[in-house]
């Protein structure tokens, strides 16, 4: 049976697309970002002698110094005619040459069902029984041993994208038999651009037990020296609808799959698959947020601790058909993995298995992405509240 779901954005939500907006595609106009259709601008300017040469020359010689607004002014171009859209810049202090673009379909932003389903899967995995969670750590150990052998033989050996495969198949079965076949989540309706903003994100990096802010040249005490990533995100309070279908097979299984029922502990007596799903996700969310509060408290990042306490408050007050979950860009290693349950020693193995990433086994992960507003720490990205509604009665 199909039901509507509603995502309520609680903290800025960024779901990045494959492409980034480049400096020649946008103009900063006060607190707004105007995104230009560059192809159209080119078309419109065929009559303007010298314009194309100016742009190509500038991009070839000094792309970082290129300012589209100068060109637009110089050649008196009617930008409204080649504007894709405009969004607010919410307390963005420094605008880099690239902006992380939100995923779009034919130019309209939306939350892909795949992103929400991926987050649901990630949080369900975090809620697994400890015996099952242990299988991931075992998978890491065997990948480690394989990698050590491969290094001896000067081979590559292990792909970091396939370390979890054995555990995943063991717990959730091959895709044909997977309980996740019974969970359908549609894309949401489209987001109005007035409900989107550009958000500034900085990278917190713990160095020698101290809070530092990362940029390519090093790590700094002053957050203003830290690298700024600007991303298009959906504003808090925005609500978006989609359709969800949770088949009984998802929890109870059928002849092809065992279902998920026996894979978790401390789940109150089973009533229906929606409440089961919500309860399992919320149990993982609580563990995850508690461990994040511990992390941020240790480094006295009071604003973030306060934000997470607020989320805990919301979590405690949820109805049985609601859950809290984090998704999208800049949500970090713990959000997407089961790493928060690993023993400390496992990260030494992870360092060997994934030798292209910076892994510090003493403290991993030691970075976090934080949203800044007007130069101050504001919140963490990606938290949403999902409400699974009544049986579908109308369109989105």
């Amino acid at each position, binding site marked *: 049976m199909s039901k509507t779901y509603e995502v309520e954005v609680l903290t800025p939500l960024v779901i990045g697309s494959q492409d980034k907006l480049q400096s020649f595609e946008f103009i900063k106009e006060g607190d707004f970002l105007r995104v230009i259709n560059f192809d159209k601008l080119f078309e419109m300017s065929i009559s303007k002698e010298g314009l194309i040469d100016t742009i190509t020359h500038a991009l070839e010689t000094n792309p970082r110094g290129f300012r589209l607004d100068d060109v637009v002014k110089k050649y008196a171009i009617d930008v409204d005619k080649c504007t894709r859209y405009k969004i607010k810049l919410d307390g963005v202090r420094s605008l880099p040459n690239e902006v992380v673009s939100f995923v779009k*379909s*034919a130019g309209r932003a939306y939350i892909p069902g795949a992103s929400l389903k991926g987050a649901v899967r990630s949080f369900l995995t975090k809620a697994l029984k400890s015996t099952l969670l242990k299988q991931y750590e075992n998978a890491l150990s065997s990948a480690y041993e394989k990698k050590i052998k491969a290094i001896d033989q000067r081979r590559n050996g292990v792909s970091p994208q396939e370390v979890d495969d054995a555990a995943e198949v063991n717990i959730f079965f091959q895709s044909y038999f997977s309980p996740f076949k019974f969970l359908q989540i549609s894309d949401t309706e*489209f987001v109005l651009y007035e409900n989107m903003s550009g958000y500034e994100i900085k990278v917190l990096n713990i160095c020698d037990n101290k809070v530092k802010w990362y940029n390519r040249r090093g790590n700094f005490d002053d957050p203003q020296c830290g690298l700024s990533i600007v991303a298009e995100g959906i504003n808090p309070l925005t609500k978006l609808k989609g359709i969800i279908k949770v088949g009984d097979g998802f929890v109870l299984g059928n002849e092809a799959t065992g279902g998920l029922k026996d894979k978790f502990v401390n789940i109150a007596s089973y009533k229906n698959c929606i409440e089961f799903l919500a309860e399992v996700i919320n149990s993982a969310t609580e563990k995850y947020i508690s461990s994040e509060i511990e992390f941020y408290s240790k480094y006295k990042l009071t604003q973030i601790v306060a934000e997470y306490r607020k989320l805990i408050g919301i979590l405690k007050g949820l109805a049985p058909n609601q859950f809290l979950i984090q998704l999208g860009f800049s949500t970090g290693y713990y959000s997407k*993995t089961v790493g928060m349950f690993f023993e400390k020693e496992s990260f030494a193995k992870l360092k060997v298995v994934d030798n292209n990433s910076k892994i510090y086994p003493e403290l991993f992960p030691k970075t976090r992405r934080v949203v800044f507003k007007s130069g101050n720490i504001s919140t963490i990205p990606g938290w949403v509240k999902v409400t699974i509604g009544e049986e579908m009665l109308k369109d989105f």
Partner: protein
Amino acid sequence: MDVILKGKYIVKCKIKAVTGLHIGEGNNSLEIGGIDNAVVKDAEGKPYIPGSSLKGKMRSLMEFAEGKVKDELLVVTKGERDGTSGIHIHICGDEDCVVCGLFGRNHGKHKLKNGEERDFTDAVLPTRLIVRDAKLIKKSITDKMKENLDLEWTEVKFENNIDRITSKANPRQSERVPAGAEFEAEFVVNRLKVDGEDDGDLYIKKLIQAMRLLEDDYLGGQGTRGNGKVQFVDIKIFYKDRDAYFTQKQPQVIAEAAALKNLQF
């Protein structure tokens, strides 16, 4: 068996993609430089919905709805590579079976899921349901949408599969028709009189039921991850009596609605 054609119900409507739609080419042959998961396209390079995809999906939804998904009733049509599972469709010899009655039976011997072999040739009737290929309505993809598409009529969607241990992403891409696209669809239901018994409007009603089931499910690939929510809109149902084929008589409109949920039929 004595079979007479009494008339034809013709359903004309639009299929609207509410979310992106991916109906794959089926062959996974990789074109160099192409997208590794392309959608089916017609001779003009426009995406379309093959009648066979629509019919197949509706059949499987009806099989569930009518409780026909049982071991002794399922025919194995295609074995998977590893031989442990196959694609099963329901075919039976029951003359009153609405699923087989509407969607048809195949001639010849079939192997049932429970191992038995059966031949349904005696029960084979002219197929009641014909589903035409649904062509893209070009103007449903507006100029504004086209400006933002990766390809002429479609877009490329990326999805990441994330390793739960390393957090490394494994990106996959697939092509899809953007949300908002509309297709011109046509269904024909033959009204038969079999051994003196008239179908009446039984099968056209079953078709409408299958359409309702499809609106509540998805069409095409990656449906559990967002794609393929469709709606039937601008629906008109015609009835064309057998005699109309011999005279100038125009088919009658017997029902119409702006959307399936408003259809009183």
